[in-house]
Structure formats: C-alpha cells, structure tokens
C-alpha cells in the first residue's frame, strides 16, 4: 500500500516531529549521565567537560554489576515463564469448548483489575512464610501469571486460521505439537511484541524487588538507580548514568525482537 504524495509528506512531517519529541528529552538525560556535578543543572544538554565519574560512582557506591546480573537473570526467567504460561492458558481458551470456560476466562481477566501494588502486603506475608526473601524465586514466581498476556494471545489465537489447526491435526500433530510447531511459529510478531512488553514491565519494576530483597546480592537495577534519587541527596548524574546503563539491555532486546517482528512481518502469509 502506498499513500498519495501529499499524505506521505504530512505523515513524515508528523512522525519526524513526534520522534524529535521522543529523542530530545532522552538526549537531555543521556547528556546528564556524562556531566560533572557542577554542570548537571546547566541548560546545555551536552556536557562541557564530559566525565565518566557518574558511571564510576555507580559501580563504587552500589554493586551495580550484581544488580545488572540479577535483573537480567530474573527478567529472563520471569518473561520466559510468563510467556509459556500465558500461551498455554490462551491456547486452551481459544481451542476448546469446555464447561466453565467463560467463567474461568472471566476470572483470568478479572485478575487484571487487581493492582498488584495494592495487594503486595498479603503476598509479602506469604513470602515471609515461605522464607523466600532474597531469592530469585521471590522475584519471579509471584509474578509469573500475566492475565493481560492471556488476553492479548487469545485475541490472536482466535483469529488464527481454523484450517491450520485442522491441517495440523490431520497431519498427526496433537494439540501439544500443533501449538509449538504450527501455531506459535506463525505468531512470532505477536510473541515478540509480547516479549518486549513483558521485558519492559519486569525490567522497570521497582516496588516488589525493593520489598522482597534485603541484600545487595539479590537486588535489581531499578533499586540501584533509585538509590540516587533520595531526599536531600539527589544525585542526578548517577541517576542518569544508571538509567542509561539499565536501558542498554532493554535496547538490545528491543532491536533483537524488532528484527524478528520485521522478518515475520515481511514474510507474513496468514490471513
């Protein structure tokens, strides 16, 4: 599909402006990461006397490498688990009629309406009973159920061509192999988008990790960053340096999956 030239011009103009509005604030943040303390508050977005001090402080003041490792490992475990569990669940809802289906789906959707931040205290007490503090388990397991991922996937499973399910079944694939060999390979764009969403969500989480981790050895990047934003002791240079470093893995994941999304996007043959 190609738009007419005037519309294309308008589209490009709007998008360029929009992208600028995205990039400028982030450049301000990036510039701050390289500024010495006496420049942090200056209006000029780039540093006059660039320094890596903020990054050095990041690793000196907090064990940032440990935080990074914990974040990467728990995020990978969590996102992987979330996707698998949500895929299984959405597949069941999309594929079968069974007694109580609507009711169960309502229960899964309903769980989306419960803000986790506000039910943290009971979960925290559960973690205390389980003695899971300072473990990856505490960071991963309570957050494995992602109702909204089920919702997203069900929408796509439902619009998945029925014939392909049937063909797979005729070819001798049971529901299990049909899922992994036929359905999922064709939903790569959605799965990639979902992976990005879940990654970002997990990577940026702050309250829960702070609540269930006591030792630096089990803490995550966001805690490390927020330590620089503290009443009376704001260290914006350190904050921005941390934010910059913390967004690098996210950036990598995005571009990795972006490729995936793109490949399937061009190769698309369904529908």
């Amino acid at each position: 599909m190609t738009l007419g030239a005037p519309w294309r011009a308008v589209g490009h103009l709007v998008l360029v402006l929009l992208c600028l509005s995205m990039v400028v604030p982030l450049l301000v943040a990036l510039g701050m990461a390289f500024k010495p303390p006496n420049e942090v508050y200056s209006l000029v977005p780039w540093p006059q006397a660039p320094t890596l001090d903020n990054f050095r402080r990041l690793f000196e003041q907090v064990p940032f490498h440990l935080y990074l490792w914990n974040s990467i490992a728990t995020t990978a475990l969590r996102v992987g688990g979330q996707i698998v569990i949500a895929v299984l669940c959405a597949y069941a809802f999309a594929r079968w009629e069974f007694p109580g289906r609507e009711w169960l789906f309502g229960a899964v959707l309903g769980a989306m309406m419960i803000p986790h931040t506000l039910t943290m205290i009971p979960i925290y007490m559960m973690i205390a009973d389980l003695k899971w503090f300072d473990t990856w388990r505490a960071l991963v397991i309570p957050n494995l159920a992602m109702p909204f991922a089920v919702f997203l996937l069900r929408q796509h499973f439902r619009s998945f061509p029925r014939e392909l399910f049937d063909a797979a079944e005729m070819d001798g694939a049971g529901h299990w192999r049909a899922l992994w060999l036929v359905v999922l390979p064709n939903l790569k764009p959605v799965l990639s988008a979902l992976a990005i969403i879940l990654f970002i969500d997990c990577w940026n989480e702050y309250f829960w990790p702070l609540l269930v981790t006591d030792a630096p050895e089990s803490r995550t990047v966001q805690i490390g960053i927020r330590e620089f934003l503290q009443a009376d002791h704001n260290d914006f240079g350190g904050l921005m340096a941390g934010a910059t470093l913390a967004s690098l893995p996210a950036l990598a994941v995005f571009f990795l999956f972006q490729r995936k999304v793109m490949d399937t996007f061009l190769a698309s043959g369904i529908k």
Partner: protein
Amino acid sequence: MAAISFRGLAKHFGAVAAVQDFTLDVTDGELLVLVGPSGCGKTTTLRMLAGLEAPTAGEIWLGEREIARLPARERNIAMVFQNYALYPHMSVAENVGFALRLAGMKADEVARRVLTAAEMMGIEGLLARLPRELSGGQRQRVAVCRAIVRDPQVFLFDEPLSNLDAKLRMSARAEIRRLQQRLGVTTVYVTHDQVEAMTLADRMVVMYEGCIQQVGRPLDIYARPANTFVAGFIGSPPLNLLPVSASGMLRLPQPLPSLGAEVATIGIRPESISLRASDLRRPLHFTAHLELVEALGAESLLHLRLGEWPLLARVPGTVTVSAGDELALAMDGSSLCFFGHDGKLIDDTDTMPTHRSEPKP
C-alpha cells in the same frame, strides 16, 4: 485401502442438527462426492470422518475399525482443505513432509518420499519455496501432494477447487480424477458445484438440510432425481419443475393416468424440449412464449413462458428463433418426471402414452 461405512451418524450444534442419520457405505477405491448447497451438512460429515468434529451420535467404520471417536491422527486419513491450509512458515518440502516427520520418520526417508510425491504432482521445482511465493494453482498442488505423500487409507477433499479460476479448475479436476484412479485410494470429495460432482464422482451423495437426499451414480441421479430438491439441484440447467396444474397447457393426457400416487409436480428436462418443426418424433406437443434467448454457441437456452410458469429449454445452437415468438414445441414423454405431494419421485412412468427409451447407463 479400505471401505468406509457410516452408521446413523449425526451432529448437533446446540439445537441445530447439522447432520442427521447419515448411513452409507463407501467401497474400497471409490471416489464418492458429497454435494449440496452450503449448510447442507456435507462438510460437517467430512470433518467427522476426518476426526475434526466429534459426532453427536453414530459410528464410522474404516475397514474393520470403528473410528468415530479416534483422534484424527490415528485414523490414517489425509485431507485437502478448501484454502489448502499450507503452513505459512514452512517451505513446500517442509509442508509436504510435516506429517511424516511427526510420525517419526527419518529425515532422508522423508525427503525421498516428499520428492516422489512432488514429482507425481509436478512440483519438484517448488520444494524450497514458501507458500506465499506460490500461485493459487501451485498451492493447490502442494496441498494435494501433502495428502498423497502420507499414503493414507482415505483421501478427503473439502472443496479444493473453489479458489481456482474456471479454466484451472477444469484441468485440476481432471488431474484429481486421474490421480485418484491411479492410486486407487478411497476418496470422499465435498463440493457445492454439481458439475464438479457429476464429472468426478463414481457415486455421489446429494445432501440437503443435514439429510441424504439421494445416493447413486451421477447419471442415475441425473435421470431419476429422487425428489424435487435433487431435481432442482442437479443438472445445468436443472430440471424444470411445474405444478400439476400446468399439465393442461402441456397437452398431457387429461386426467393424468394413475401413477400409483397423486402427482403434484411435473419435472421436464430442458434438453428434452425441442422445436416441433425440427423433431417430429417427440409425441407431446405444446406452444409457449419465448422471452429470451441465451446463445452459448453449441447450444442455446430458451427462456420460455408457459402461461404463468417459466420454462427453460436447451436446443442446438443452430436453431434460429427470436424473443417474442410464439413457439410450437415438442417433447418426449419418457423424460418427464412426476413428483408426489411429499416431493418424492413417483417411480413409475409405464403408463405414459409414449414409447420409452432405454435407461441410460
């Protein structure tokens, strides 16, 4: 290879009966066509045979196995889908070999069989392509190839030609027929296109509203439609159906001789009507008003009006008439069909005052 036997098969979707009391035997190696308008239950029947739909009641025997409750993969049946259902993310070779791979066959064996099947379908040059890189006709061949590579007991075709253009459809039709004859695999083929059904079938099953209307060899059905539905569905153009009150205008003997039941509807083959001048052998004469002529070259379709009833006649293309004419027509009494008030064929024409031609084979 195997024979199939349906016993009292039924499928209900909620309160709606999609298929009712479907009982039928299919012989080994036969090509059976299920034909009927959309929603008649033919596809549901096929899907139950495939194992994609669980029957509400009844049994399906494949050879000596009762398979109605077996999962699809344990039935050894292959199917070609209407939209081909090729896996978009797999190459042609992977698509064709998928079932074999799932069955745990070794890779080189899979490759060998895929190649053999592809050669049979003439698509060996396409094996590395993805489905989206194929034309409609090529996709259809791949779909058939995927079915034959498994060497199944039964082939199922679900309107496999409906997405092709008319020309391609004809050649594909012939090819499927040849292939089936060569492989000799019992085949059930679903279509809504009666021409396709007629040309392909060893036997065909006409379905309507979930019930079998008639089963038989195509020409038998054509000649003796079991009821007004079949009569109106089969043939191109189909049988003219006129109420018995038109018999006067047709100059039929008054009253109609007793046929063992009271006649409600009279069926007239369009090709059994001819211009009186050109065919004096036909004993029944009447006149009708010509409203429209459709000249198809070898033949012409005459849209006639007989009093208040429309009537279609098929005559050789050499006939020269023009709309508005009042035509004197002749027809052969032996080709008339009579249907009772229940719509069923009154299967006795001996009393008609005419010589009878031998039933066509």
